[in-house]
């Protein structure tokens, strides 16, 4: 929240979401520059790998300690709630790892987004040393990240559907059974569009949730600076903290859960269309 240190300047909440190029990297038309979101992705990716290895990969025993219990409960949550209820048995071994890592990765990206980290465009003067200001920013509050994740699911859905059923049976399964012939002209475009709407709804749901969560906290605290009044401080801080707790306690987990669950449902429904 860099504006805390720049209270007198103009308040614009969207400033926190501007991505400046830190290490410019252009491959032809591709812009692969390293910016704030990329650094947050690195942090999230590293933490996911570390957590996965630390929780589940060594020192396992029949009398589990606390670390192993945590790992097992995460595993069991994904297995019971997400994978087994929506993926068919024959595809479980192949797609359970994907769904589980999707859940863990998105959850960590979301939760890292609510920890104040010194990864920011702004700096402040601390006894003569220029330090980056502490800021909160989530990599998932960026449409490119969530769209990339949704594209993987989208690609996997159709590849698996065709692989298990063959192209003609798979594409026929999009159309509901017993539709009269004249209605087909109406139904077929609708079903094709609905497949692509999944892509939008999957990515925008996560992106907009995280963006709106960060915006709300920012705006609640920003009210102090918009009206430049001391009276607002208790109200703003309490409201901001309440939203923060709601986001960290509920939204972060639910969004990761729903993204993984919907991925599993889409892939499972493509593999066994009659369900």
């Amino acid at each position: 929240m860099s504006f805390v240190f720049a209270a007198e300047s103009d308040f614009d909440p969207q400033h926190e979401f501007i991505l400046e190029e830190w290490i410019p990297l252009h491959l032809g038309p591709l812009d692969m520059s390293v910016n704030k979101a990329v650094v947050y992705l690195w942090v999230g990716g590293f933490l996911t790998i570390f957590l996965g290895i630390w929780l589940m990969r060594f020192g396992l025993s029949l009398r589990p300690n606390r670390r192993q219990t945590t790992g097992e409960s995460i595993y069991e949550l994904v297995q019971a709630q997400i994978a087994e209820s929506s993926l068919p048995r024959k595809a479980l071994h192949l797609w359970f790892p994907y769904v589980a890592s999707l859940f863990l990765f998105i959850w960590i990206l979301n939760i890292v987004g609510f920890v104040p980290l010194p990864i920011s465009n702004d700096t402040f003067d601390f006894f003569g040393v220029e330090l980056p200001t502490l800021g909160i920013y989530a990599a998932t509050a960026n449409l490119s990240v969530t769209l990339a994740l949704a594209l993987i699911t989208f690609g996997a859905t159709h590849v698996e559907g065709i692989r298990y059923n063959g192209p003609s049976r798979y594409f026929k399964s999009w159309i509901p059974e017993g539709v009269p012939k004249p209605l087909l002209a109406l139904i077929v475009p609708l079903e094709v569009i609905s497949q692509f709407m999944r892509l939008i709804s999957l990515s925008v749901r996560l992106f907009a949730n995280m963006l709106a969560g960060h915006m709300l906290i920012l705006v609640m605290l920003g009210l102090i600076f918009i009206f430049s009044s001391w009276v607002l401080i208790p109200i703003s801080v309490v409201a901001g903290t309440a939203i923060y707790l709601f986001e960290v306690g509920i939204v972060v987990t639910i969004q990761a859960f729903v993204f993984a669950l919907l991925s599993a449902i889409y892939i499972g429904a493509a593999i066994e269309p009659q369900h």
Partner: protein
Amino acid sequence: MDILLAQTTDAGLADLGKAIAFGVGVGLGAVGAGIGLGTIFGSMIQAVARQPELRGELTGIQWLGFALVEAVVFYALLGALLAFVLV
């Protein structure tokens, strides 16, 4: 008072209209999602009251429904933001 006077220009009026449209758009989205969330949690309470042993199975479905319905507000927010910025 200064703020009100500034709105009497044409550009000011356009900004005013955009702000009102933004608020109404997101607000209507929130009304829909509010009704939906009320229905979901109300049904959940009824279901658990009738059959408490099903709570575990129902919780997952409840949160899935919660997230799907809640996202509607954000579609409204995104649409309103796009209209606000682009128009």
